[in-house]
């Protein structure tokens, strides 16, 4: 049986007993590259991506899971990286906006559709919108406009580019079905 982790301030600054630790060695893949890091368990995946791995395409909006600007894929599924403790990425494959372009640097079809359908104005929410849109299509949740709107509701756009965003995601979904 491990020694109790005490709740006073001393306990917070002294080394805890196994299996607990305050520095956690974590390994995962980001955009097809292996990453190993020693993490403070407080660090969010969002902060690790931006501040440690210098992948600043993923944006910090609200930092509380309300806005979707920080959406990335973990093992192919969309999550908000601001509410993902980075230690939970252990053993997973993370994809960010930097990892979706083709091998020759050509835009992902959803990125191209955002250009074609004028689906952005300031662009701050766009990386999250694109990551959410790609997952929405993969999940099969972009079958019609109403369903796409419902399943993209976790991504806010202060510029109000929603009609273009829905049109872009729907256009790619229709092409993938055909």
């Amino acid at each position, binding site marked *: 049986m491990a020694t109790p982790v005490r709740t006073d301030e001393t306990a917070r600054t002294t080394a805890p*007993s196994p299996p607990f630790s*305050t520095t956690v060695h974590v390994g995962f893949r980001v955009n097809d590259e292996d990453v190993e890091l020693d993490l403070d368990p407080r660090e969010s995946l969002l902060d690790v991506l931006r501040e440690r791995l210098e992948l600043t395409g993923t944006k910090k909006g609200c930092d509380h899971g309300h806005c979707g600007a920080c959406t990335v894929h973990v093992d192919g599924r969309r999550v908000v990286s601001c509410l993902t403790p980075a230690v939970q990425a252990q053993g997973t494959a993370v994809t960010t906006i930097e990892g979706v372009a083709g091998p020759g640097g050509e835009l992902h079809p959803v990125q191209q559709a955002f250009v074609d359908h004028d689906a952005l104005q300031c662009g701050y929410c766009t990386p999250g919108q694109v990551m959410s849109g790609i997952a929405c299509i993969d999940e099969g949740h972009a079958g019609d406009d109403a369903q796409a709107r419902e399943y993209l509701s976790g991504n806010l756009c202060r510029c109000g580019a929603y009609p273009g965003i829905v049109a872009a995601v729907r256009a790619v979904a229709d092409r993938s079905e055909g």
Partner: protein
Amino acid sequence: MRPFAYAAPASVPEALDALVAAGPDARFLAGGTTLYDLMKLGVEAPPAVVDVHRLPELAVVDTAGPDELVFGAGARMADVAEDPVLLRDYPMLAESLAKAASQQLRTMATVGGNLLQRTRCSYFRGGAPFACNKREPGSGCSALEGIDRAHAVLGTSDSCIATYAGDWAVALIALDAVVDVLGPDGARTVALADLHHEPGSHPERETTLAAGELILRIRVPTTRTARGSTYHKIRDRESYAFALASAATAVALDADGVVTDARIALGGVATRPWRAAAAERTLVGAPLTVDTARRAGEAALAGARPGRHNGFKIELAVRTVTDALRIAGERAVQ
């Protein structure tokens, strides 16, 4: 965020041992969408966290059995929302999950953790300078004198009027679900109806779980009544918002359209998942019409106590129940 120690044990027994070893203020971490968020705000500050989000024992879902549906506590909301048996035979369960949060959060959050999301309001989340008996027992309640438009009208007390924000538990309580829990004193089964407290004079105590107890699974007795069911959720915006009022309803009808079984539970208006048993009784033996549905809605809200800005919720909830019963009736097997 306050520093904390982290452990990710490989099994349920190891997780329980770790939590006990870490002391009474340690917390289990699953999807993190509530706990980690509140830790960022400093409202929660556990000294140690035991991560259970990927324990394989907690991931099992079995909806094929003849007697009960079984949902491992660690199953993801997004996955359970698309279970084909739920979509066909238990639309109220599937809809309660699909209408909760956003797809990103549903992909992260677990069906067990969702039951335990904090009953909370903006004054709780806001921290100082707001008084909150839940955050700091005995400090008062800023909501009672403040903006209470989102707050509860059922099950409130002079200490707390925060709304239980979950949807899934509301649908589950209507179907007599139970949870299996394991803790330092062994295993036990708790009816969902007995899992949450009303705030009373101790709003900081939200559930009847003892320190160190972990929900392993949720079980729902199978019922044909749930084929005629819905989770009807009325919000300020069409998607990704808390309920202003919601109703989980299910009805079974005989060949003449007379109600033989009725289930009604409310969300968005109460301090805990709220089963409206008296309202159910008004329906059984009666034909399902707009009038009988409305009467059931009024019975469900009979004890409601409005605050300063949330009086509209009472009529809204009556109409939500009425509408939800109509939808359930259209789906019911006769």
